[in-house]
């Protein structure tokens, strides 16, 4: 259950040819979450500044 | 109520653009479609219905655009509010008149065109009935969208009422299949009448709340 499913980095990235799909989805997901956090942070500091 | 219905009929008939416009668009689309494809390659009667369904969706949206906008812009809504204290009756009357004067003629046009494109003559009445009922549903839905967006343009109207219109379209599509394959017609008509009555009773309540918020 806790064994790595892949034996090397290349396999991790490639995932038997499915890597492009899997990694692009996660890349978009992570970046969307990060971007929305940074927008929210920016908005908050703006709101404080307006005071 | 009679007063409202009478005045809505009078006003709509005076506005030829709002009244005849949707009917003409419907005719135009239904004529344009066969001309835009290679008829020899397609079995037109198989999917001509779906063009009718989509045109019904579009024209009923066009027809209800500005349903409440005019009354909002010229101050009639406020006067109506002073008389009735809410807009339930106004919304009910407007939807009724629009369905009667635009929705049912649209359904008639749709039925005539479907008949002209290879649908058996004896299902003419069925098609007409189904299209009329679905127009009742669609006009309720788009009246709601229009009451929400009033003078804020079609984009907001589409975004707010399209999710409500899609189930109606699905219902319309499957009821048309029951005509084509010949079973379950009565039950689907009963379903549509039930939803239609429920919607006609409840939608004006919601529209009234939205309009009240607008003039606030």
């Amino acid at each position, binding site marked *: 259950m806790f064994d790595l499913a892949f034996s090397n980095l290349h396999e991790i990235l490639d995932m038997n040819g499915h890597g492009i799909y899997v990694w692009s989805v996660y890349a978009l997901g992570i970046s969307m979450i990060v971007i929305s956090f940074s927008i929210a942070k920016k908005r908050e500091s703006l709101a404080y500044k307006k005071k | 109520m009679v007063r409202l219905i009478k005045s809505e009929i009078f006003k709509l008939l005076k506005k030829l653009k709002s009244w005849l416009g949707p009917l003409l668009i419907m005719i135009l689309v239904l004529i344009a479609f066969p001309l835009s494809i290679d008829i020899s390659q397609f079995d037109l009667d198989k999917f001509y219905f779906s063009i009718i369904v989509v045109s019904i969706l579009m024209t009923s949206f066009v027809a209800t655009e500005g349903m409440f906008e005019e009354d909002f812009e*010229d*101050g009639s809504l406020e006067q109506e509010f002073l008389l009735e204290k809410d807009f339930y009756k106004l919304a009910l009357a407007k939807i009724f008149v629009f369905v009667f004067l635009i929705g049912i003629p649209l359904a008639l046009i749709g039925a005539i065109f479907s008949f002209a494109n290879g649908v058996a003559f004896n299902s003419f009445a069925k098609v007409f009935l189904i299209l009329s009922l679905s127009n009742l549903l669609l006009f309720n839905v788009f009246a709601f969208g229009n009451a929400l967006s009033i003078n804020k343009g079609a984009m907001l109207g589409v975004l707010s009422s399209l999710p409500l219109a899609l189930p109606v379209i699905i219902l319309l599509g499957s009821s048309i299949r029951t005509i084509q394959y010949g079973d379950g017609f009565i039950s689907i008509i009963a379903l549509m009448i039930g939803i239609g009555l429920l919607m006609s009773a409840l939608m004006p309540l919601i529209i009234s709340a939205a309009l009240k918020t607008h003039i606030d």
Partner: protein
Amino acid sequence: MKLLSAQNITHSINDAKLFYNLSFDINSAEALHIRGGNGSGKSTLLRIILGITTPSKGLVELIKPDLKISYLGHKNAVKSYLTPLENLELLFHDAELKHAFKWLDQFGLTNVQDELTANLSFGQQKKLALIRVMAQSSELIVLDEPFVGLDQATADQLKNFLAEKLSEGVGLILTSHIDPMIECIELDLGV
């Protein structure tokens, strides 16, 4: 006789506070003149009195719940694609309609009664809109800047009409930056 009373009305739109803690009563046969600069919230106050706008705080209490109010605001509530005659027929019936026709005549609109309202001048449209108030029998008349766009003769007619209604016991609320020349209670909203 008291028609309605406003208690501690406070209203603000978004962040702009329009007025704070206004209280007043309106009695029959009494005129209330609401004054104030542009943007002081005169029209909004009228709409609060009418129950169209809900105030942020406070209460407008109608003594008689089914009080008959006639109102003319900034918007004329006439249909531009109908003729004046059709507009009136849409609004009134029987005795009231006769009354409305009488006013159409007095305002000198009979010669344009079959033209489209959209083609009428601003003043003519305003007159047409005023007929709504004049032909209705009501217990309270609410007018928002009724004299704007009216010529002297029509303004006088309106003043006479209002004075007559007041003597009949109708209540009146109006906003106007022109002196209405009627005996009024003043309510000043400031700038």
